[in-house]
């Protein structure tokens, strides 16, 4: 029998998806738009690190909460992560709407960030039900 409950499994899944979104920032998002060819998600704007930090914190908290025996005690990790995770989805959505000649990296990022938000919200709902 798995040592992880429904909450922990959902948190791990959300954390992995968030981590993969961070990686997808370095995939090509726009064809031929960069100085050396394709433009990555991190090359779109100088403040790319801001959503990266928020999503990385959300993912890290969820992973630690799922793997630790007592969790974070009083800290409502699923709620905090649900609050932070949409930063990645908004960042991706903003540039998908604004850009032309989208490449696989942008669509990958959109899918990963949307899935991370959904699983974070699911973890929060499971946590609230107790």
């Amino acid at each position, binding site marked *: 029998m798995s040592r992880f409950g429904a909450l922990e499994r959902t948190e791990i899944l959300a954390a992995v998806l968030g981590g993969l979104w961070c990686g997808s920032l370095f995939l090509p998002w726009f064809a031929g738009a960069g100085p050396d060819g394709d433009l990555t998600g991190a090359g779109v*704007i*100088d*403040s790319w690190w*801001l*959503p990266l930090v*928020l999503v990385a914190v959300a993912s890290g908290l969820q992973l630690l909460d799922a793997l630790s025996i007592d969790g974070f005690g009083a800290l409502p990790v699923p709620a905090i992560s649900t*609050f932070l995770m*949409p*930063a990645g989805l*908004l*960042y991706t*959505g*903003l*540039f998908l*709407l*604004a*850009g032309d000649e989208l490449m696989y990296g942008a669509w990958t990022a959109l899918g990963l960030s949307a899935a991370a938000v959904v699983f974070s919200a699911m973890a929060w709902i499971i946590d609230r039900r107790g």
Partner: protein
Amino acid sequence: MDLHGITREQKQLAAAVSMLLFIISLFLKWQTFGPISGSGADLGSWPLVLLIALAAGGIMAADALGMDLPLRRLNPTAVATYLMSLLVFYVLVFLFAIDGIAYGVWLALIFSVVGLLLTFSVYREETR
């Protein structure tokens, strides 16, 4: 000035007005670069932000006026707080990225933060 004397409805209406002012700030000058300048509405994704601000402000105004919102089990104030936090994030992303920042960005930041603080204050009162 006694901020504790402000009623819940007044805070909600003030938050809705902040969203209106945020929308106006989207059309002000966000960037000046020599002779070239651009507004927040020159960014390709501005309609998305406009919709978020309209939804957040509309929820606050409707709740203050006692209208029933079709949000089922969701807390309207929590939804509005969440949406306003996305607006703050949006402004910060461009604040850290744009060269030649103009007054429009600062106004957008002020209005989004004021709206968020007012809405969060209402949310705290509700959940206390």
